[in-house]
């Protein structure tokens, strides 16, 4: 039966699907390449949506339920688009002992979101990490891929306020762009 299988065409003409196809070819269109492929999708698109999951599942010949199961089992995969900025607070043991909970409480209070959520208008996504391995610098926070060590409540508040101070709802954001650029 597998001899008659033809891989479906990508759902859109977006060039990023070429990256996904390349990964699937590398794993020989086998089901065991599922996690590798989902990594590529997330790297290319930022998150996994239903369209992507369906395409990958059919291409690798796994049930959609299994693709969805894998995507939701692993914490690294997200099914929702991330905000403009991400703030990852490390909740590893060393960071916890040195006050990561206070950082998290402060940010949760300021942004009004729980970990894993994005603040209104898609500005900042708040995430927690199990351990970044930067325990020597505890407590550690990752602002947009950049690791900062020995973070305090005032310093995290300052950083977040830089991100959010020019915040306006998305509809009216366009006319004010010059103001954002100056900041």
């Amino acid at each position, binding site marked *: 039966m597998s001899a008659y299988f033809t891989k479906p065409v990508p759902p859109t003409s977006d060039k990023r699907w070429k990256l996904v196809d390349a990964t699937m070819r590398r794993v020989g269109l086998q089901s*065991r390449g599922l996690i*590798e492929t989902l990594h590529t999708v997330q790297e290319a698109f930022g998150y996994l949506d239903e369209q992507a999951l369906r395409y990958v599942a059919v291409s690798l010949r796994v049930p959609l339920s299994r693709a969805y199961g894998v995507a939701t089992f*692993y*914490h690294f995969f997200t099914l929702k688009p991330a905000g403009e900025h991400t703030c990852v607070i490390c*909740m*590893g*043991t060393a960071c*916890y002992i040195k006050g990561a909970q206070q950082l998290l409480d402060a940010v949760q209070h300021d942004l009004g979101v729980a970990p894993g959520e994005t603040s209104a208008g898609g500005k900042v996504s708040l995430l927690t990490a199990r351990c970044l391995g930067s325990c*020597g610098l505890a407590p550690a926070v990752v602002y947009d891929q950049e690791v900062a*060590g020995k973070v305090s409540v005032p310093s995290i508040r300052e950083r977040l306020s830089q991100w959010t101070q020019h915040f306006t709802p998305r509809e009216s954001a366009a006319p004010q762009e010059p103001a954002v650029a100056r900041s």
Partner: protein
Amino acid sequence: MTPEELEQIAEIEREAQQRFSQRLNVCVAAGCLSCQSQLVKDRLDAEITSRGWGDHCQAKGVGCMGLCAEGPLVSTGSGVMYKHVASSDAGRLLDSLEGQPVARLVCPTDVPFFQRQKKIVLENSGAIDPERIEEYIAAEGYRALVQVLTEMTPAQVIDQVTKSGLRGRGGAGYPTGLKWSTVAKAVGTQKYVICNADEGDPGAFMDRSVLESDPHRVLEGMLIAAYAVGASEGFIYVRAEYPLAIKRLRIAVRQAERLGLLGTSICGTRFSFRIDLRLGAGAFVCGEETALIASVEGKRGTPRPRPPYPAMEGLLGQPTLINNVETYANVAPIIRNGGDWYAGIGTEKSKGTKVFALAGRVQNTGLVEVPMGITLREMVFEIGGGVPEGRTFKAVQTGGPSGGCLPSECLDMPVDYESLARAGSIMGSGGMIVMDESSCMVDVAKFFMDFCMTESCGKCIPCRVGTYQMHRILSAITNMTASEQDLAMLQELCDLLKHTSLCGLGQSAPNPVVSTLKSFAEEYRAHIADHKCPAGVCKPGNGAAL
């Protein structure tokens, strides 16, 4: 690649190194990189070029030097170490190469933190450029592999590893030689070697440092293991959260392939081996070997009952050898120096050295490698420099969420597999978190239970429901709403999870609770009977009573 060709590469590299009479090694492992050490290196490079010193002076990016809290670290060819170096210090550092060191930045290296260490796994960390295979070869790298392929039979290799007394560094401490010989004896058309680099314990970063500082050492260990057990394909399962380690591993694999040290007919022999990377996706349970195999196969990372052990039926149903990063990193020195040499280090049952990630409320946080059998007191107070800010030591936590908290009475205990297990903790992968009186032990137990509850894969009920129940009781205790009956229930659950869970995650999840109940029972009592938290961490909350 013949032994002569290898020696030739080493010789050319050593000569190239000798051209530089002056050298500055800048740490470019993750810890220092997050303190902008790349800027320091770039600035040094620019300064060297603008001064026209390029012919005799070199700034080199190297791996972790250990004292991560004082970064960015820079060391000179003459052995001076600098801490907290900013890019604006570049010129001053270069000026000082001829004369006196820059006093303001000097980091003394004659302190116990450096003197008490014995480096085997980390021997090249902080000395070689992790992104150049030539430097690893110049530091005797791949010599053990060539020696194994040209002079030894697989049985002789296993014999040396058995003699060394090396035990699995992932935490459980299973004798490595025994594991290798089981896989070697197993029957299968295709055998696999897997490197477990899914370092999930919060508070542990040893594997990450080894991979970032000396990736070739791990590849060489895997190659020797593959030869010994008869495998032709290998996987490194590494956390996606470690992008730098992934990048350097990819570079290392490519370089080794280019030199014919990986691939088909390695060193002109019939031995072939290829290594692929597999990225984890943030699931702690994937550190368990059967769950890891499921994940490599592209499935949800859920464990399965053992036996059959992976040594018999592992990846795709074939015999599979799984070892931790640090275990593989020990292999090349064991082959080079002989198993007896390794067996001469450490204690009677725990041989060799162990890398620990020292963190928490301790003066010197960072990475240390010490011989087995050193006492906890030496670790915390001599190497670690004691508890800062005049506070008092309360406990040290080893083994992550599967380990326990050891009180001050245990400080004179030697650090080895048996002693730690007797005291109610485990060696674990090597995280060591120091706590002072500002930490509430019930809160710490709740923290770990929260971790286990979230990370439970949900396959077996004792773990899935038990961790939830235990977390609920611990939350009630920290909210001051628990009763004596709840405490009794908590103890009963500890027993239940330990004996009925499917895998190590559930079986060891009660450890933090058991160990704190044993050593800090009065703190639990204060929360329940007096509605007080001695450390002042827990507040009577709005958590509902049970």
